[in-house]
């Protein structure tokens, strides 16, 4: 497995022989197809992170993330969400289907 990108808490790997990706979440490692990675990206983009700074909108500052068609459930705090966003953002640049370049971000 090749390391695609490593953020503070997480690591994204590409497994060439299996044609898929892995994310090491610390407590467990999750296998993901590109579709599942795209779906994670969409879920992260839909999170209103600004609500974490408003105690009425998100009083505990947690997000519940269900991945891979409800196979995995994660409860992440604000910093972990931001870090995962970073991992996915950079990850997509590295795997070559984002128009953003590493230099810009």
């Amino acid at each position, binding site marked *: 497995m090749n390391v695609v990108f490593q953020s503070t808490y997480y690591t994204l790997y590409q497994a060439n022989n299996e044609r898929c990706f892995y994310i090491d979440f610390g407590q467990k490692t999750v296998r993901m197809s590109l579709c599942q990675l795209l779906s994670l990206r969409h879920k992260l983009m839909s999170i209103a992170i600004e609500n974490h700074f408003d105690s009425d909108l998100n009083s505990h500052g947690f997000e519940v993330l269900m991945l891979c068609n409800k196979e995995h459930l994660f409860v992440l705090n604000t910093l972990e969400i931001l870090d995962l966003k970073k991992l996915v953002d950079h990850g997509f640049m590295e795997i070559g*289907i*984002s*128009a953003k370049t590493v230099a810009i971000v």
Partner: protein
Amino acid sequence: MKDIARQSMSIKVESMDLLNGQIKMEAHASATYLAMASWCEQNGFFTSAKFFFKQAEEEREHMMKIFNFLVDTGGNPISPEVTDINHDYSSIVDVFESTLEHEVKVTQSIHNIVKKAREMGDIATERFLDWFVMEQVEEENTIRDILDMIEVTGTEGVGLQMIDNQVANWID
């Protein structure tokens, strides 16, 4: 590293995001035209109602065209949430004026995606949108023609019913 991602997906994720936004916009247009059809039915403009029922269907077809393009390119098409549909119109003129306003917004949005796709060098997305660019020219032209007809006919006396009858010319 092997290009696994590129082999499974042939457009950029940023194009995919923009196209998912456009899916939402077409769905919103479809729902808006359905609301207009409802208004027309309730206010006795039965030909115009027919026109908007057909427009609603066409906008859904536009949405599906983009949805299927995202399927074909290996992207992640998102079924849109449609909210904030206006059902209040002050007159049949208001209905058609709002339609033109809406179509112009759609045109601008499509032009924006074409420009962004061009900047990204995403030729597939750019070429895919060719059809939409020309479709918007036609749609805007149809509504402008109807508004011209309304202007010429006038809304006094039997004008409103004459307007409704003439909308039939734009239902094909």
